[in-house]
């Protein structure tokens, strides 16, 4: 007798097919990598099994007659605000398999999103707003350590710098593409990010999967990442980019490592990461040469020695309780850029419990880190980049007003090329051709088209940021940076307002 494990009785989505409009063209059959649609040989038409549907909407998007609708399946369970269907289904799955719950994409839980409780200012009467369409409006941003004072030699030709400034990353928008490794997402998207970043005058981050030889040409717009697995990390790699980022933590899974499952390691990924095909690529939780802050200094300077002090070194941590003290230590350890990744940050795979319960919102972490670095008089010694849940240009503006120099966007960049956040990235079967290295699937992403879409997104956000800046009477992004007077809270309690360092609206 065949008995299905109990967890497979309860699917999340139902597929609805308008029979009258279905032409049995089998597009859905070919598009669905989870085989939810299939050809019924006996009945000679396309049928589907809703139990296999992950809710990615690829079939509905591709259906030439729009006959498909994907709906959430109404809950089978009695209403219970404690025992929601999520928890019931988790337990069924774990009882069936003994497995650790695994999820893709960022934390979906209904926890506070502070971006939505902050409102921006605009000029009225007493100072003029500026029209960005006709007047200069500067977004150029430099990331890197700045000295406390400029040191000049005064010559008859004018002042000359005694020493060049420490190395800087120059960005034309305060936005970068976040670290998503080659392997987690495929080569086409790495090409797309590299080209889009080059077009835009910003940077993309390689993630921890090494750098494909074909992408060295985009080095001036590349941040190469060094993570605990050290995949594809070598002298040439370190020297290939415009900056090196040491990844200590990730917002989606603070305190734990990651591993790219063997299924996702094809020939090219294997070559770039320099690990065998099909074998798991495991990144340990910590860097095993960093167990303390002075060890971080050691690695930062190992990289600076290796790159002859030519490029800034960034250190990325997850937003955790002690973030301000840690960030201060990172700056004092010689990092030129501190990156903080909030608990909403995306991921290809994270243990669900970690993703949903560890870490703190980026807005709070950003506010307190910026405060701490200013209090200690070291804010100039490093730039501050935030990531994890930046959804729109207003989020970018609010982040910069709280004190960020720039933001990373990861999920937003993937949504730009079709991601619908179905969260099954760890299967390697992404129907949108993003989190997959399967030949049939990855070709769904044309690098030229994807690059254009990513560039469009950033340009559009850039215009919107300029509009918001102009409205506030500012024509340069520096005047927004850390300018919390431009923010007001709504619906926040006093503690939250204090942490964010902003007034309540109306005050």
């Amino acid at each position, binding site marked *: 007798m065949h008995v299905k494990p109990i967890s497979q009785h309860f699917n999340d989505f139902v597929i609805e097919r308008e029979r009258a409009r279905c032409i049995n063209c089998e597009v859905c059959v070919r598009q669905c990598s989870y085989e939810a649609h299939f050809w019924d040989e006996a009945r000679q038409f396309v049928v589907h099994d809703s139990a296999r549907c992950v809710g990615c909407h690829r079939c509905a998007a591709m259906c030439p007659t729009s006959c498909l609708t994907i709906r959430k399946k109404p809950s089978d369970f009695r209403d219970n605000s404690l025992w929601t269907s999520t928890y019931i289904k988790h337990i069924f799955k774990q009882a069936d398999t003994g497995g650790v719950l695994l999820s893709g994409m960022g934390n979906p839980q209904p926890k506070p999103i502070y971006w939505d409780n902050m409102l921006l200012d605009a000029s009225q009467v007493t100072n003029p707003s500026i029209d960005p369409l006709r007047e200069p409006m500067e977004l150029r941003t430099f990331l890197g350590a700045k000295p406390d004072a400029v040191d000049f030699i005064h010559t008859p030709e004018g002042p000359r710098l005694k020493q060049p400034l420490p190395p800087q990353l120059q960005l034309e928008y305060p936005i970068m593409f976040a670290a998503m490794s080659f392997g987690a997402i495929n080569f086409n998207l790495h090409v797309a990010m590299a080209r889009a970043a080059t077009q835009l005058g910003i940077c993309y981050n390689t993630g921890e999967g090494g750098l494909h030889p074909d992408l060295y040409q985009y080095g001036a717009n590349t941040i190469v990442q060094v993570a605990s697995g050290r995949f594809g990390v070598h002298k040439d790699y370190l020297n290939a980019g415009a900056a090196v980022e040491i990844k200590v933590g990730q917002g989606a899974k603070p305190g734990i490592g990651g591993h790219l499952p*063997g299924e996702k390691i094809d020939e090219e990924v294997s070559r770039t990461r320099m690990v*065998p095909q099909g074998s798991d690529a*495991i990144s*340990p939780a910590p860097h095993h*040469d960093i167990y303390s802050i002075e060890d971080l200094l050691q690695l930062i300077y190992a990289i600076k020695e*290796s790159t002859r002090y030519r490029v800034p070194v960034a250190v990325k941590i997850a937003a955790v309780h002690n973030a301000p003290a840690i960030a201060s230590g990172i700056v004092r350890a010689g990092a030129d850029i501190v990156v903080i990744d909030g608990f909403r940050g995306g991921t290809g795979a994270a243990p669900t419990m970690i993703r949903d319960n560890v870490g703190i919102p980026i807005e709070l972490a950003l506010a307190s880190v910026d405060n701490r670095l200013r209090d200690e008089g070291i804010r100039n010694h490093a730039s501050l980049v935030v990531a994890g849940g930046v959804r729109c240009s207003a989020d970018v503006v609010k982040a910069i007003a709280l004190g960020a120099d720039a933001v990373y966007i990861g999920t937003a960049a993937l949504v730009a090329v079709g991601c619908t956040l179905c969260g099954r990235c760890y299967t390697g079967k992404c129907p949108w051709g993003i989190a997959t290295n399967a030949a049939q699937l990855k070709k769904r992403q044309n690098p030229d088209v994807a690059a254009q879409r990513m560039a469009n997104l950033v340009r559009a956000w850039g215009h919107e940021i300029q509009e918001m800046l102009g409205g506030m009477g500012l024509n340069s992004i520096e005047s927004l940076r850390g300018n919390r007077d431009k923010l007001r809270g709504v619906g926040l309690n006093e503690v939250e307002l204090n942490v964010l360092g902003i007034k309540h609206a109306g005050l």
Partner: protein
Amino acid sequence: MSGDVMCDEKGFCVQREGERCVIDATGVYYRQLNERIRAALEHGVTDIEVVQVRGQRYIATAVEGDVRFTVRGVPGQDLGAFMRGPTIHVHGNAQDGVGNTMDGGRIVIHGMAGDVLGYAMRDGRILVRGDVGYRVGIHMKAYMDRVPVIVVGGKAGDFLGEYMAGGAIILLGMRSGMADAPITGRNLGTGMHGGVIYLRGRVPEYQLGPGLSMEPVDEADLEFLRGHIADFAAEFAGEFGAGAGTGGSGTEGQAAPADAEALAAAILSEPFVKIRPFSHRPYGNMYVGTN
């Protein structure tokens, strides 16, 4: 030959003898020391002896090419990190982080070494005469014909070969300063999913991390071992025996032969075991998807 004097832009000069030069590290901060080393390399020096080294970090870090370093004293952290090609001989003990993410070349330590030696090492050889610390060979990996090998004459601390993904560690446990210690500590090879660890002698099963097998070596293994042990013996013949010196109080029991061939034979006279993972995917079945 009298040699010429070679100066860097800051006015620091070293005497060079053709392709050789000697740099005195007394009281020199690592950054200046490494600048001098790089300046010497740029002047075409290929054989650098650094003397009076005490704790200077990053010696030979990210240096590429066929260059020979002789280090006298105790080099600091991250000796030969990201290195590709050079040969380093350390006459003294080394500290933590030797050969970090090393990409090729050869490090020979005529003494003992600290923790996290050969972390994420991808190619090359590290030979250590005496003991090594904790987490040695962690996350070593091999790719195609690039196979890193670490040979340790003494004993190792816990977590040897943790997360190992490729390459080989050969642990002899012979010339140790820790007479009472087991040849290696707990959680041996834990998380290992590639590569192999060879031990001279045996360890109790409970020292092994999960998912690993310990079995006798076969002829192919012996062939591999003979090559690397001959190499090891050639480096350390004459200094592997009992006696004073840096690190280690000598071979347990008896003096070792001074002649390389005899030393290799003595090393190979005891049986070896090999430790390998059952799977290249140790955590393949650990998870259940939620979406």
